[in-house]
């Protein structure tokens, strides 16, 4: 236990004295500060609205043969496409095409009937939603015309067309609109920290091995103290870094709260319920441990630092798959699908899957207890196993040993 404390202290000092570690943390805090103070800066340099107005709008040509409706068409299109200068024309289609290719107009709607048209554009952008709007506009014109044709006055028709539906949503469980952003941020933080620090643990072990400092370490300490000391030290360093980032974000947010006032997304991020933060901490620590132990064990089997990147790939893949299952489930809105349910009990995926379900859906308390129980048991098991692999692995030099020979050697000790 005394040795464990010494190792923990030494390893932790290694992180906190590391110039890169400190540098990255400081840089990230500055970046967060820059984002959070952005509205204030934006006020100091107000955007020049007058220049925007004088800038020529892109031209949208609307070709129609029904010139008697030109005014109405112009008006409706102009309302629907505020970003365009709408010009109604009755020229030939070839002329319209020419206007677009020569750059005089950006796009054109050539009406071929009351409910059909051709949309011309030079380069079709991925985000071009114009046709959808045009469909809507033409549908409205068609319906208006139909209503007026049936003897309704234009005002009456317009009133019918512009009727608004009022609605109200009351969520009895979790509100996914509200918690999507902060869940996403927390899952992503979990993902980044575990991946980064896992690699750091693996590199740390492998560099001790390649510098032969291992020779002294294995003869001075027991591998359990060594492994747990290293992993817990890196976990503390990771927590420290997260705390610095999230802490500074919260502080800077409160300094600029009035500036951000109206932004719903930012507001939801900073309104994380306390119980969720506690779950985040629990799943972060346990998830971190289970992966860091694996990374440490892998690090001990590599004989050269260069081998680390390929050796850790299986674990990294496992973790990335878990991440994508969670992210896709979040995006689909159904975080309680079968894959997520299974994943929330598998120790390697449960930190992210269970956490997401708790954050975005309603999970029974016993499900959470079972998931955390399995996770704690697995962390201890994986920890002891990795310490054994470490003891066997660190003394094997030369080529990276096969998994089967490591399992055999571990089995025998």
């Amino acid at each position, binding site marked *: 236990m005394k040795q464990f404390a010494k190792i923990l202290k030494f390893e932790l000092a290694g992180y906190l004295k590391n110039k890169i570690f400190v540098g990255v943390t400081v840089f990230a805090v500055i970046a967060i500060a820059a984002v959070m103070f952005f509205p204030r800066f934006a006020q100091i340099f107000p955007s020049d609205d007058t220049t925007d107005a004088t800038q020529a709008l892109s031209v949208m040509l609307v070709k129609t043969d029904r010139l008697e409706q030109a005014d109405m068409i112009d008006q409706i299109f102009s309302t629907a496409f505020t970003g365009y200068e709408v010009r109604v024309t009755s020229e030939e289609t070839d002329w319209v095409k020419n206007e677009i290719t020569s750059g005089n107009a950006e796009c054109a709607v050539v009406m071929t009937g009351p409910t059909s048209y051709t949309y011309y554009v030079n380069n079709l952008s991925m985000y071009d939603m114009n046709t959808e709007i045009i469909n809507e506009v033409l549908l409205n014109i068609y319906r208006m015309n139909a209503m007026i044709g049936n003897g309704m006055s234009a005002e009456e028709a317009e009133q019918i067309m512009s009727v608004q539906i009022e609605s109200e949503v009351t969520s009895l469980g979790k509100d996914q609109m509200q918690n999507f952003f902060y869940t996403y941020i927390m899952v992503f933080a979990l993902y980044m920290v575990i991946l980064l620090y896992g690699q750091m643990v693996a590199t740390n072990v492998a560099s001790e091995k390649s*510098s*032969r*400092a291992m*020779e*002294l370490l294995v*003869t001075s*300490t027991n591998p359990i103290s060594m492994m747990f000391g290293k992993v817990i030290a890196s976990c503390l360093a990771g927590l420290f870094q997260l705390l610095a980032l999230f802490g500074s974000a919260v502080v800077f947010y409160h300094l600029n709260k009035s500036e951000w006032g109206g932004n719903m997304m930012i507001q939801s991020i900073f309104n994380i319920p306390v119980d969720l933060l506690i779950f985040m901490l629990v799943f972060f620590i346990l998830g971190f441990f289970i992966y860091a132990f694996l990374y440490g064990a892998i690090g001990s089997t590599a004989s050269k630092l260069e081998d680390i990147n390929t050796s850790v790939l299986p674990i990294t893949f496992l973790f990335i798959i878990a991440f994508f299952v969670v992210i896709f489930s979040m995006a689909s809105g159904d975080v309680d699908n079968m894959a997520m349910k299974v994943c929330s009990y598998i120790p390697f995926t449960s930190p992210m899957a269970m956490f997401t379900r708790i954050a975005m859906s309603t999970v029974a308390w016993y499900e959470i207890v079972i998931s955390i129980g399995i996770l704690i048991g697995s962390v201890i098991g994986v920890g002891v196993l990795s310490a054994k692999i470490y*003891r066997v692995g660190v*003394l094997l030099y030369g080529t990276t040993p096969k998994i089967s020979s490591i399992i055999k*050697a571990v089995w025998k000790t």
Partner: protein
Amino acid sequence: MILELKNIEKSFGEKQVLRDVSLKAEGGKAFGLLGRNGAGKTTSIRILMNVFPANSGEVLFDGKPINYNKVQIGYLPEERGLYPKKPIVDQLVYFAELKGMRHNDAVKAVDDWLERLGMIEYRNKRLDTLSKGNQQKIQLITALAHDPHIVILDEPFSGLDPVNAMLLKDVVKEQIAKGKIVLFSSHQMAYIEEFCDSIAIINAGKVVLQGDLRDIKRNYVRDRLVVSTEMPEKIKADFGNACSEAENGSLVIQLASAADKQRVMKRLVEEYDIDEVKVFEPSLNDIFVEYAGNRE
């Protein structure tokens, strides 16, 4: 203090590395562990240090199974290595603390040793800024700072210049004088001969020779004579195939049996111009080559 390895067997997978290895080292004396590369020296040392357990056999300290919490061991591994990027004093104190020293004691012991080895000026430097020989001295401190009962030195002299080798010799002699068990492993026979009272030669996982170095030499069959002479050609001609020339120019005469020694010596002195004649005593090198050379 007596350290014993008794009937140690060890195999890694299918490969048997140690077969019935028994060794005995006493306090106040240096013990030389010899063997070719891969003979099983490092494995024996690792079992002794409890890095991994033996398949069978035991490690005894003063007749009882060794208690690693009480008996302190200092180790200078053959594969040298510390943290290259960390300040020297930090890592030395860390290793001393891992061996159970309190922080302040560790700092003091480390500073004393840095002073003693003339390295105090490098105290706060990073290890990789030092030359290889100086790094080796730093490594030596990790083996000695916690004042261990047993000191294990694996190839301690490799890479040291003559001045540093002298410094190390003094340190080793001091450790022996303090009554510690000093265990040497080396291929440099001259150093082993200089320090070690008793030796063991391991070959292919078996102890093939063990005992007091002087006894071993004395028990060697005394059936060869070394002759320094001004007239080697005549002696060579007279003794024929029994006479051969050694590398340093003196002659070696192989006797038919050790009993002829007296008679042949007398004849040599009477009949030839002889500077010196003595019974051939094998050097440790000769003994090593004979026992570890080509036996399986």
